């Protein structure tokens, strides 16, 4: 049995989402990400490479586990609970329209379950169906999410944080300037992709974000 973090309060405050640009099983981007994550960093990494098939994702997941080494980083895979399970990752991150955590657990896939939610209703549903944490967004304006309409805003983030008992990670337009507002609204932590793309700045970025949540 894999070691689950001692319920939700052991979860890190920061979730790094992978670049979505892996070309193949060599995992060039993930490898360099893991090289830039400091040994003592407290964060989780969500592998989100939706264009890759099962075998490529499996290879990438195994590679990520190897690259993680003894770092405390939690590893999750987007959507594919089966691949997360067979490759020994810590959990799966489910899109809003994925199979529910409850159904996957019922089928024997026990692991950490994160759920993307874009409304209060789906936040409540995800909590009811056994999610361990929620990812809510886009909170702020972000170029990659513009096609889905205007950002949700921090008031909505606040409502989600109040209405559920789960840790809520804010996503979308997270920067050093916006992160403190998320914390103020009750977000447990934050998730981002582009914020972490510059490997030279990664260690500093992680440290500063962690400080925001320690204050």
């Amino acid at each position: 049995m894999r070691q689950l973090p001692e319920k939700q309060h052991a979860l890190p405050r920061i979730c790094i989402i992978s670049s979505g640009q892996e070309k193949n099983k060599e995992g060039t981007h993930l490898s360099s990400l893991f090289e830039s994550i400091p040994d003592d960093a407290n964060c989780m990494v969500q592998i989100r490479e939706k264009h890759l098939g099962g075998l490529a994702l499996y290879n990438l997941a195994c590679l990520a586990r190897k690259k993680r080494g003894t770092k405390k980083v939690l590893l999750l895979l987007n959507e594919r609970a089966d691949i997360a399970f067979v490759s020994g990752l810590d959990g799966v991150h489910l899109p809003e329209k994925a199979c529910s955590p409850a159904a996957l657990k019922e089928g024997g896939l026990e692991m950490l379950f994160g759920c993307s939610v874009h409304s209060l209703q789906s936040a409540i549903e995800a909590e009811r169906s056994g999610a361990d944490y929620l990812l809510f967004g886009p909170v702020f304006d972000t170029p990659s999410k513009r096609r889905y309409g205007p950002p949700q805003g921090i008031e909505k983030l606040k409502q989600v944080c109040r209405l559920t008992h789960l840790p809520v990670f804010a996503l979308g337009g997270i920067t050093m300037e916006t992160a403190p507002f998320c914390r103020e609204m009750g977000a447990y932590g934050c998730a981002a992709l582009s914020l972490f793309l510059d490997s030279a700045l990664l260690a500093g970025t992680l440290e500063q974000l962690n400080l925001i949540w320690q204050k």
Partner: protein
Amino acid sequence: MAKVIPMPPFLCVITDEEMNPVSLAAEALRGGAPMIQLRHKSADGRALFDWALEIRKRCTEHGALFIVNDRLDIAMASGADGVHLGQEDIPLRAARKAVGNTMLIGISATSIEEAQKAQDEGADYIGLGHIFPTISKEKHHPPLGLEALEKAASLISIPILAIGGITMENAPALISAGAAGIAVISAVSRAQSPLQAAKELSRVINLNR
């Protein structure tokens, strides 16, 4: 509980990406198909799971096997009898380690070598193809033909399901060549009556027994 592959020769109906998989499966089952494979590459996980539950229920009612293509997670969550994996899906060994013998694992092979390897690694059955030219899926290889099927059947002891370009007319030859069964998409899904097509295919493959 170990699952059992139907007595040969048998028909496996694979759902068609272009239509509702539940109603297609229901018709195929009423036409006597003893094995249904849910295959949908572009659906959301939740839709796939909902379909899987519906087909699971109907397969149980008909005493038929229910297999999910590619998505082992959906197979496990819906209580399917098995999962069917392609060469670009989760590796067989990894899948087997996760499910043990509680689930059947079928492997798609496009050559005798791939089929042999799948058998060595513990596959329960092989989907070998495409045997004939087909329009259902885009193909990168020429069709294998009946001779390759015959050769594979003589070398491999686990059941081989012939797939690709199967019609009422050519189906019996596949069984004569040693296939344990046939797997079809369009021969059933695109027929005027999928129910009648399933019935008729089951009949013609049993003529030469």
